[in-house]
């Protein structure tokens, strides 16, 4: 806790002397970006403006890196435990991993009514990965960025941004939700046939004489799925992170109790959002496996 206080204090002083609160927050909400400069060469952006000038042809090294690191660490850890798992009475850590596994499996079994051996692993991956990415939110907001700035200073990047929570990057959340969207399309067409899939869009809910209205209703519904899925997760975590930043930027040395209260509250949001994401994946994929309606 002393470190936390120190870091917070340093940040507060830092903010008071050289940065306004707005600058402090903006800095924390910017990404460490590697991309193509307008003049054509590739490199790390030194300022947020440079990062913006890169447009689409850039990659957020920080959130992407954390996302990959967390995902790989979780999967390797689970594999490590799985390889040592026995069917006897499970020991502590195996028990813990198994309880997560069983929890996810129970959700899939109850929510997904068709046979598809890949849905379980998908849900496990999504659930644990998102929980862990969200949990990065609970690391005090200045720890890792300050360390990153010290390391970055060695290469002349003493003001570099370093975002720690991958799920506060819409690229990360939308990257996952769009992947889920493609899965919805893939499984819909696979199970209903392209005709069945299109007829669901065109002839529902009002029958074939209302086709334009059906399309007006169904097409936005279809596209709303990935958008709402990705933005819900992003919005919740972004808001949570922003509040941590506000507390850190505005409250000075008296911020600790506020941090604590918000962290406790956030402890509910972290698994809840991961759970919501997983449940919606199950619901969407279940709908994609439903046989085509042939009553029209």
């Amino acid at each position: 806790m002393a470190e936390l206080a120190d870091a917070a204090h340093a940040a507060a002083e830092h903010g008071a002397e050289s940065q306004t609160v707005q600058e402090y927050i903006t800095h924390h909400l910017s990404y460490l970006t590697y991309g193509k400069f307008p003049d054509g060469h590739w490199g790390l952006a030194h300022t947020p403006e440079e990062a913006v000038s890169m447009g689409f042809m850039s990659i957020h090294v920080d959130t992407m890196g954390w996302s990959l690191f967390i995902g790989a660490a979780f999967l390797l850890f689970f594999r490590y435990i799985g390889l040592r798992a026995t069917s006897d009475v499970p020991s502590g850590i195996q028990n813990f991993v198994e309880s997560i596994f069983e929890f996810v499996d129970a959700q899939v079994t109850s929510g997904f009514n068709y046979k598809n051996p890949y849905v379980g692993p998908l849900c496990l991956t999504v659930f644990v990965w998102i929980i862990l990415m969200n949990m990065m939110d609970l690391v005090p907001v200045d720890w890792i960025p300050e360390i990153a700035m010290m390391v970055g200073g060695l290469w002349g990047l003493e003001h570099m941004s370093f975002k720690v929570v991958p799920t506060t990057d819409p690229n990360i959340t939308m990257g996952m939700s769009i992947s889920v969207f493609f899965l919805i399309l893939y499984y819909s067409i696979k199970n209903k046939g392209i005709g069945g899939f299109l007829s669901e869009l065109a002839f529902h809910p009002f029958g074939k004489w209302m086709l334009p209205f059906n399309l007006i209703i169904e097409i936005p519904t279809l596209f709303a799925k990935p958008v709402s899925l990705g933005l819900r997760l992003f919005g919740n975590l972004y808001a949570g992170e922003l509040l941590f930043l506000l507390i850190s930027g505005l409250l000075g040395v008296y911020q600790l109790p506020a941090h604590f209260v918000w962290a406790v509250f956030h402890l509910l949001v972290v698994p809840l959002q991961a759970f919501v994401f997983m449940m919606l994946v199950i619901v969407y994929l279940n709908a994609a496996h439903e046989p085509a309606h042939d009553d029209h």
Partner: protein
Amino acid sequence: MDITLTIIGQSVAFFVFWWFCAKYVWPLFMDVMEERRQKIADGLEAAARAEKDLELAQAKSTDQLKVAKVEAAGIIDLANKRGSQIVDEAKDKAKEEASRIIAGAQADIEQEVNRAKEALRAQVSAIAIAGAEKILESSIDQAANEDMLNKLASEL
């Protein structure tokens, strides 16, 4: 919102992680838990079987006990019968022996009586001769009376 290549990177990561999980993580736990489920099912089945076996064994033991009781009762009956038979035989034998002894005793007695009669007869004839001698005060011709006396003695 700045959408960048990150979104594609994350999509790729998503599919790679999914594939890894489906191939190298999920089956491990699935297998272990299926194995454990099987073990538990086997255990429960064994327990049920043991319980049934116990029930059968108990039923069998009561049956055997019943049979044994019946057998024991039969044996006791037989023994009782044999016992009374032995007693009866012994009684019969004893009676036989008793009657044999009685018969022997009677024969002895008869013999004794006969012997006494014989002696008595001899003495009677002597007494009769002596008496007759006294009465006659003379000697009788022994040879002449011998027949008459013997006749008399055999009549006694």
